[in-house]
């Protein structure tokens, strides 16, 4: 099936589900639209794990196909948060680096919408400076014991599994000695506490690790190779259309109501076309086996700006309508997170600047 046919199929299904009241569109649905049943529905349609092998419950399709699927889900403002992290980055990481046992156990469960992941990267003292994580993994018989604290782990309180970046040794350089683990969040020694955010008791959580056990088979890739691996993961984390489309449901309403000054709307639509093509280019490069980290950073830098500019355009035209006002307010409260999560604007700017210098040499 072509990408265009897939697009049409996804679109028709989402229209049907929306009309049937199975979901209500909203902005930022890939973070806060958490609906386990909806994820299972998508899993049943074969729309989770599109890119991994059929051997593991996947569908052996390319990243361009996944790009098309995710674009349509985001356009519809569908509640995809429950499987987003696993589908986007941890599933692919398991497919590339995981042991046979881990692949067999988790990939089919993710593809079915049953296994749900959260990300344990950040810590109280490790934000932008991720290499300074202090969570430790100590070698024991048959595996590792994790001890430390993770924070800002979105939706950890309802996840089944966590990805954890931890220190396995103190290398000469700070980027050495980091390793990646997959953790069962129901394991003894794991405590999850929610952190209310400005939208109320939302997605934020902290995870306390008190000698939580991870079997050897659940180590991702090489011990000590975590930094290189997590850096590659960033292409998946930053390079998708969700870095452009978090507020698309709001823009869609704006376009549907034919509101707004034509110049402002035209500018947004022009930029949308360019940003979507940029995201598509990232997917094409992933299909070619690359990890286009710098291109993904560029996309996120520019995309986050677009997401906020949609809000500004809506502010110019919408506030009189109460229903639209609510959609606008929802987006306003989500916006501060856009340019923080997945790497702040300032940090991305450094990455993009370095790339520019490298290309100019």
């Amino acid at each position, binding site marked *: 099936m072509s990408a*265009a046919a897939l697009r049409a199929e996804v679109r028709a299904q989402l229209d049907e589900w929306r009309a049937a009241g199975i979901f209500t569109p909203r902005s930022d649905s890939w973070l806060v639209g958490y609906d386990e049943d909806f994820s299972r529905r998508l899993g049943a349609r074969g729309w989770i794990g599109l890119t991994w092998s059929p051997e593991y419950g996947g569908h052996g399709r390319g990243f361009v196909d996944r790009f098309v699927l995710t674009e349509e889900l985001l356009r519809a403002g569908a509640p995809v948060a429950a499987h987003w992290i696993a589908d986007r980055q941890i599933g692919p990481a398991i497919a590339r680096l995981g042991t046979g046992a881990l692949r067999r156990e988790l990939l089919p469960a993710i593809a079915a919408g049953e296994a749900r992941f959260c990300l344990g990267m950040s810590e109280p003292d490790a934000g932008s400076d991720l290499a300074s994580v202090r969570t430790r993994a100590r070698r024991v018989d048959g595996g590792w014991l994790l001890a430390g604290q993770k924070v800002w782990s979105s939706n950890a309180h309802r996840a089944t599994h966590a990805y954890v970046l931890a220190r396995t040794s103190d290398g000469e350089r700070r980027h050495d000695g980091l390793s990646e683990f997959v953790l069962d969040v129901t394991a003894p020694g794991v405590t999850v506490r929610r952190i209310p955010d400005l939208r109320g008791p939302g997605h934020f959580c902290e995870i306390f690790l008190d000698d939580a056990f991870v079997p050897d088979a659940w180590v991702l890739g090489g011990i000590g190779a975590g930094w290189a691996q997590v850096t590659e993961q960033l292409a998946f984390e930053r390079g998708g259309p969700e870095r452009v489309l978090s507020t698309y449901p709001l823009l869609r309403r704006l376009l549907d109501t034919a509101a707004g000054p034509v110049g402002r709307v035209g500018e947004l639509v*022009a930029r*949308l076309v360019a*940003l979507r*093509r940029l995201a*598509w280019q990232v997917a094409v490069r992933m299909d070619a086996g690359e990890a286009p980290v710098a291109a993904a950073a*560029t996309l996120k830098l*520019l995309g986050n700006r677009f997401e906020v500019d949609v809000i500004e355009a809506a502010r110019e035209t919408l506030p009189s309508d109460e229903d639209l006002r609510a959609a606008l307010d929802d987006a306003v409260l989500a916006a501060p997170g856009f340019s923080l999560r997945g790497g702040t604007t300032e940090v991305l700017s450094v990455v993009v600047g370095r790339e520019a210098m490298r290309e100019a040499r």
Partner: protein
Amino acid sequence: MRAVAEAAVQVLSAQVAAYRDDPAAEMAAMWRTTGEQGWHLLAVPETAGGMGGDLADLAAVVRAVSAAGLSAPLPELHAGLFGMLAAGLDPAAALDGRIGVALPRGAEIAVPWGRHLDAAVLAGTTLPCADLRPAVNLAHEPVDTLAGAAAGTTPDPVVNRWRILHAARLVGAAEGAARRTAAYAATREQFGRPIARFQAVAALVAEAHAQAVLAAAALDAALVAADDDPVTVPAGLATAARAAGVVARCAHQVHGAIGVTRELGLERLTRRLWAWRDLPTEHELEAGIGRAVRAGGEPLAWSAGPEFDVGSSG
């Protein structure tokens, strides 16, 4: 196509050196050389007297030429020839490089490089290029005008062709300026270290680079759009025009005083960015897109999707 692009840059640069202080003579030489070399025939079917390449091939040449801070009437000559073929008119003069395009603008019609042309294509017919009012843009290129307005409302494939290649022009100059800016920041030292080490400077370098990348993606999308596309093609040019202003600003800021001298040559790029982003401006294009989307609604905006080529190849 790399070879053609490199040859074009080489041949044109060699000409420029001879006209250092005479921009009018430089432009006349650019006109002559482009016509003699016939690069505009690149994206024309062999059956029609062309070289059988596609539009992307020609866009790559245009991009390389403008990245080097050079002028060449390739978008005009190509669109003129395309217009003659599309309208079933005799392409002989166009093959010789004497037919361009007419771009209605308010109460006038702009004819880039008009003084060198026999005629310009407008809405399926040709306008003779007599009684032109001579004018030049900020980059010293001739952009002459004719009296009379003929505002087309439907997307015109000939204008779209020209817009795509004009966007390629802007993308090339933006890439050239962004690259020079990054290279300069990495080597210029102040306070005992390269200025690129100052994060505020690095952010300007990053911004210029990001805008050039975005404009290139917009061009890439326009290149695979349908001939009569009402959104993706104007979006490509609007994005390139918008990027042009930002790149020029960042480039000059990072270069300091040396950047505004003729000596350094950065101005060959920024002058072109400022000149080319003005015909038409991003504001005009965006208003057009806004009107199209108002009529076509969200589905039209979204249908300017990124993977036309994949979709059609099944």
